[in-house]
């Protein structure tokens, strides 16, 4: 498959995330990279010119970075690609570059609004909408995994935000090593420890964000919450929210509860959980 990687307004973090993939050697045998701005010998203009002249299309166009609402070339490239993948929150929702500039957006969205560069009903040559790999950055397994599915002829099923369900149907909370603390409502009172859950005091978005960070680990070894940092919900459209390290509360109840949990249920269960929490989870240990 022929891949073209395009960068727009970006920090290049998704590129460096991608380069962490364990077996790039075999990957580059399966996929021919026509162009990658940080890696290729030739410049982009030259490559695009040759590409258009040759009449051969692109199999996968990967877009990294936010775009401007009037970008002609990006739109043209999307048209000649069989599949288009938006990689990282900037390309999906606009993210940080869009915060300070109204003319900046993602391929399909500007934050939660369907106001991206491409038309609402955009389909690439292969008949799929843009495949969105949100995350700041996206995990290498999500990127490569999606490419491999396309290469195998198995188009990924997408969720309501155009993200492959395989990677975005579970919460960051799944597989977090602090789950037992969450269950028994043993909250971390301080940062800097392996113990305690970060939901109540430190703004952890684990139960509110769709990502597989704790089941497909980062750099094969860890994740934010495993390293004691709250999840900031970087796979969702509202990243980066204001007050990233705080849990907003009303009358002692978190303003936002885990997805699908009612306020009544939360209050009842947490009261009971706290009362019966095993001693070994409390204190220093």
């Amino acid at each position, binding site marked *: 498959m022929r891949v073209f990687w395009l960068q727009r307004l970006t*920090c290049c973090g998704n590129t460096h995330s991608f380069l962490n993939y364990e077996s790039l050697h075999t990957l580059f045998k399966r996929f021919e990279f026509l162009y990658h701005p940080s890696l290729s010998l030739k410049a982009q203009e030259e490559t695009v010119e040759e590409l258009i002249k040759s009449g051969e299309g692109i199999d996968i166009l990967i877009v990294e970075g936010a775009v401007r609402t009037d970008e002609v070339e990006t739109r043209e490239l999307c048209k000649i690609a069989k599949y288009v993948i938006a990689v990282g929150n900037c390309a999906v929702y606009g993210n940080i570059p869009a915060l300070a500039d109204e003319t900046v957006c993602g391929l399909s969205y500007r934050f939660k609004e369907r106001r991206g560069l491409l038309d609402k009903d955009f389909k690439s040559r292969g008949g799929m909408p843009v495949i969105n790999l949100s995350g700041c950055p996206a995990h290498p397994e999500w990127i490569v995994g999606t490419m491999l599915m396309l290469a195998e002829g198995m188009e990924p099923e997408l969720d309501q935000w155009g993200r492959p369900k395989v990677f975005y149907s579970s919460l960051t909370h799944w597989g977090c090593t602090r789950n037992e603390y969450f269950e028994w409502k043993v909250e971390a009172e301080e940062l800097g420890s392996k113990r305690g859950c970060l939901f109540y005091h430190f703004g952890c978005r684990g139960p509110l964000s769709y990502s597989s960070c704790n089941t497909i680990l980062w750099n094969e*070894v860890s994740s934010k919450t495993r390293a004691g940092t709250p999840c900031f919900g970087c796979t969702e459209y509202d990243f980066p929210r204001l007050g990233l390290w705080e849990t907003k509360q009303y009358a002692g109840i978190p303003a936002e509860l885990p997805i699908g949990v009612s306020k009544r249920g939360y209050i009842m269960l947490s009261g009971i959980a706290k009362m019966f929490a095993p001693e070994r989870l409390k204190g220093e240990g």
Partner: protein
Amino acid sequence: MKVENLELPRVEGEARLELFWKDRLIEDARIRINSMRGIERVLVGRHYMDALVITPRVCGICGHAHLIASVRAIEDALGIKPTEKARLVRNITQSLEVLQNHVKWFYLFMMPDFILLEERLRGLYEPFRGERWHIAINMASKIAKGIALFSGQWPHSSYAIPGGITSEPFVKELTSLRQILLELKHFFLSYVVGMEEAEFVKCLKEGSWQKLNGDAGLFLELCHREGLLTLGSSYDRLISGGGLYAPCGYFMKRVVHGRLKVDQIEELNAPSYSGTKPVRYRGMPFETGPLARQLMSGNLMVKSMHKEFKDSFAVRVLARILEVWSIVEVIELWIERLKEVLQEKSTSLGRFPSKATGIGYGIVEAARGTLIHRLSVRNGTIQDYAIITPSQWNLGPRCENFLGVAEKAMVGLKSKLHAQMVLRSFDLCSVCTTH
């Protein structure tokens, strides 16, 4: 006069180079980088803790340096000190980030240019295919794993907080890191310099750079043939904010000065062609980065080469490669000290004060040189945030009196490939330059 406008491949981000030719020589050069993302503006009005999540997003390859600069600026403003354990761990992860950068830069960004001069090098350095290219990428991602052991992930971790770090590393992380460092040493000795450890250490002591083998040796041989040993010099004024293995100071008129006054660093207004503000120290342009650090720390190999060729293309590149060894050595020292304080707490504070007021600086030696963050907080809210990046020093534009450092280094060159290579020797990063 002929004007040429080039798009630069293999750059972090987007950059264009304008060359002005006269009598087959480059008479003037301008670097155009314009893709602003407005990160400083986004920070104003937010709680200061948000900076720890947002500033790493300035740059995908040196985001960790931004995180550390941010946390230091906050600690400075709030009058907080991290625990010794946290300080050491932060030093280690930030240095590892520099290491992965240098490995990628040399093999993925620098060496492929030589293919355009020597077809036979394809087998080694060709993007996506070359044997060395793959080995280097693999090595870089192992180093990134070393960072993640402590920070949860790389790129874009936010594990440094006022007073310390969020993770609670113990023996297991240290032993895993040690293995990665051993592998990196092996990589460096067998591929980069092509020598046994004892032999390399001896050459280092003698300052005999001519004896280097491996890819560094090949690089020097190619430079010799292409005349690049002497080309690409700039002002030969170098500056280091102090960090990694090097003390702070500056080099000027052949003398090393061991003190640096932060209040003498200023950002000037950008000229019309550039989105970047030039940075000056005592009114003059300085180059920052590995060459500055190596001279400050007295690396004899770099010193002897610098004595012969000043701040030329080849010296700049060699300083960057050799820095890998200097950094591995200092990390080993830090690991030894860390063993002694492993029982300490990860943070001196645990909770961060929600309302706080103050002004603070955070200075870090990032891969490309001195990085400065300055923030002002009132009642917990950021009033002002300013970032001066290493690339602003090196790739920043001209002011009324001086050309930018990289601009100056390209004047007088005879080929556009050479101009691009010289530019790349500064480890071009446009995303940092504009942020």
